């Protein structure tokens, strides 16, 4: 069946997954739904200790079994040691047919590939995968369909019961012996536990793993003792220097600085840039530079940000410290400055569901004026692809891209016209991960294109005469005139993964890469 972004979703895939094809952004708005809760074991006995000696004991006590689903969070980013530690134990116990439901998987998790090959891991649900696991999935090594869903989408899938987690493993920088968990302090300080909070609410069993046991009560707890079954103390849960791997050096790349300037020009010349505006941006060089340009103009015009949200960086925290932003809402910290900034009383932690779950009573992303995003590819329908490389290999993650793009009044994608020889502005993206109806403005180094669905933005930018305006087709044509029109990448018929839209419908499928 052809879905609302023109992608063929094979009937067989709809049948296996029980999901519907994507029908447009507001398909499930105001549609009644029931939340599903976990099956838990109450702790009434006041003699019971939650401490276990090691991961193996935790797995046994949590009734680990073939075919179960285990979950993880990615706040330790490239420094994460938890996933490999737990999966090695599961592998050594000889368990098979395990599904991993992670908030994201990255380069640190390459040791999982042999476990995919030997049938220990047969399912992966994640916001995306980078590195060797992405290649393994694209090569068809994973037995079941990989499911890629956004941060908000993952919360939705756990609350509706589409995904059910048997055991959640939550790496906690600090914990007490009764499972009060905090994201801050300890040896592997990641600041927040926002993505893991939903696991505490929806997994049957919940195991905290920490390398810093503190006296009871570890308060204020980010995940409460009432959600945690067992606490396991290990030597190390993360490599601190790799946790803040998003730490960006100020860019000197003229192309990025130009795009940053265009992006800021778009923001300050559209109607939502006024006292109390809200803003989310990313961690790339152009995003950070554009935040700095924006700060200058905010000072000049005495305009303050009402709130900033998202994965946070030094540049955003600077706005808070300087009194240019009233409040920051934090789901993830990309650098150590952001972790340290949590001391500021106006820098608040929020759970992933509050941030972006499309099927609650209104997430924070709905209140966004601007979001500045990146993309591997954008096509002439404004569809974005942030998961599958132009060579057909799975290589990225949705993160909050589809959530914030839909929520924001003005969603801006910064994307160089070409990445090496690859035209980033193209006729059709390899895989649709964020629908074009969510994307309002595309900023490239060769000009700025506004989605024709947003004549209001186009008028504002024309009136301001601030950026070189092009149509998206013109941008694509410039790219193709320089690099040549690319051949279509060839795939096998077999579908290896699905891309879920925020609401759980299927927006696209990923097929197995053809060997050459």
């Amino acid at each position, binding site marked *: 069946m052809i879905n609302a972004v023109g992608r063929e979703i094979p009937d067989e895939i709809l049948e296996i997954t029980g999901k519907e094809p994507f029908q447009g952004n507001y398909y499930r708005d105001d549609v009644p739904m029931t939340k599903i809760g976990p099956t838990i074991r109450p702790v009434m006995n006041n003699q019971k200790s939650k401490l276990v000696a090691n991961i193996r004991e935790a797995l046994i006590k949590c009734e680990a079994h073939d075919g179960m689903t285990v979950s993880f969070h990615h706040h330790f980013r490239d420094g994460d040691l938890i996933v490999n530690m737990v999966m090695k134990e599961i592998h050594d116990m000889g368990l098979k047919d395990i599904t991993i439901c992670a908030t994201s998987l990255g380069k640190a998790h390459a040791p999982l590939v042999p476990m995919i090959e030997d049938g220990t891991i047969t399912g992966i649900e994640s916001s995306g995968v980078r590195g060797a696991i992405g290649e393994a999935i694209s090569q068809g090594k994973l037995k079941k369909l990989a499911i890629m869903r956004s941060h908000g989408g993952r919360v939705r899938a756990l609350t509706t019961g589409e995904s059910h987690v048997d055991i959640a493993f939550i790496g906690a920088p600090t914990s007490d012996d009764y499972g009060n968990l905090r994201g801050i302090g300890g040896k592997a300080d990641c600041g927040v536990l926002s993505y893991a909070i939903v696991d505490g609410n929806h997994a049957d069993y919940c195991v905290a793993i920490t390398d810093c046991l503190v006296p009871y009560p570890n308060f204020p707890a980010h995940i409460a003792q009432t959600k945690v079954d067992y606490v396991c103390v290990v030597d190390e849960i993360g490599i601190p220097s790799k946790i803040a791997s998003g730490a960006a050096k100020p860019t000197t790349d003229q192309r990025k600085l130009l795009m940053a300037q265009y992006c800021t020009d778009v923001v300050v010349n559209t109607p939502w840039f006024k006292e109390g505006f809200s803003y989310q941006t990313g961690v790339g060089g152009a995003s950070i530079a554009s935040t700095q340009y924006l700060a200058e103009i905010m000072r000049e015009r005495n305009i303050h940000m009402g709130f900033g949200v998202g994965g946070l960086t030094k540049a955003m925290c600077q706005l808070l410290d300087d009194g240019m932003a009233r409040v920051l809402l934090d789901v993830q910290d990309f650098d150590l400055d952001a972790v340290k900034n949590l001391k500021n009383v106006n820098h608040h932690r929020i759970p992933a569901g509050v941030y972006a779950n499309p099927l609650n009573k209104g997430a924070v992303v709905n209140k966004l004026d601007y979001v500045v995003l990146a993309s591997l590819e954008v096509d002439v329908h404004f569809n974005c692809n942030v998961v599958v490389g*132009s060579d057909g290999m799975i290589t990225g993650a949705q993160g909050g891209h589809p959530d914030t793009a839909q929520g924001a009044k003005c969603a801006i994608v910064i994307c160089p016209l070409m990445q*090496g020889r690859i035209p980033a502005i193209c006729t059709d993206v390899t895989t649709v991960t964020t629908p074009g109806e969510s994307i309002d403005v595309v900023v490239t180094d060769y000009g700025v294109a506004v989605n024709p669905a947003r004549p209001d933005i186009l008028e504002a930018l024309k009136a301001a005469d601030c950026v070189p305006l092009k149509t998206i087709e013109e941008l694509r044509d410039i790219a193709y005139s*320089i*690099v040549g029109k*690319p051949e279509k990448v060839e795939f096998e018929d077999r579908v290896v993964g699905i891309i879920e839209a925020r609401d759980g419908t299927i927006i696209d499928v990923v097929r197995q890469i053809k060997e*050459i």
Partner: protein
Amino acid sequence: MKILKSAVAGTLESSDCMVTVEPGSNGIEFDLESAVIRQYGKQIRKVTLETLGRLGVRNAKVHMVDKGALDCTIKARVECACMRASEHEGRINWGGVIR
């Protein structure tokens, strides 16, 4: 143009390609590694063979490691490697087949 010895042109930097040309006796034996082979493999092959044809190279082993070079770069690197490998030894006769 006759390929008399092996010669190299280009680098492994992004958006460049490294071309190695060696004497051969079996027509053009072209071997390509490319970061963009799935999208531009055919085009790179076409540009390389055209360039060799224009230079009058009939027999050679050509190995290319491409890092996303544009057609103009590929042409220039192939021309340069062939000139270095031929009797011209890099003393280029501009305005002839080198355009």
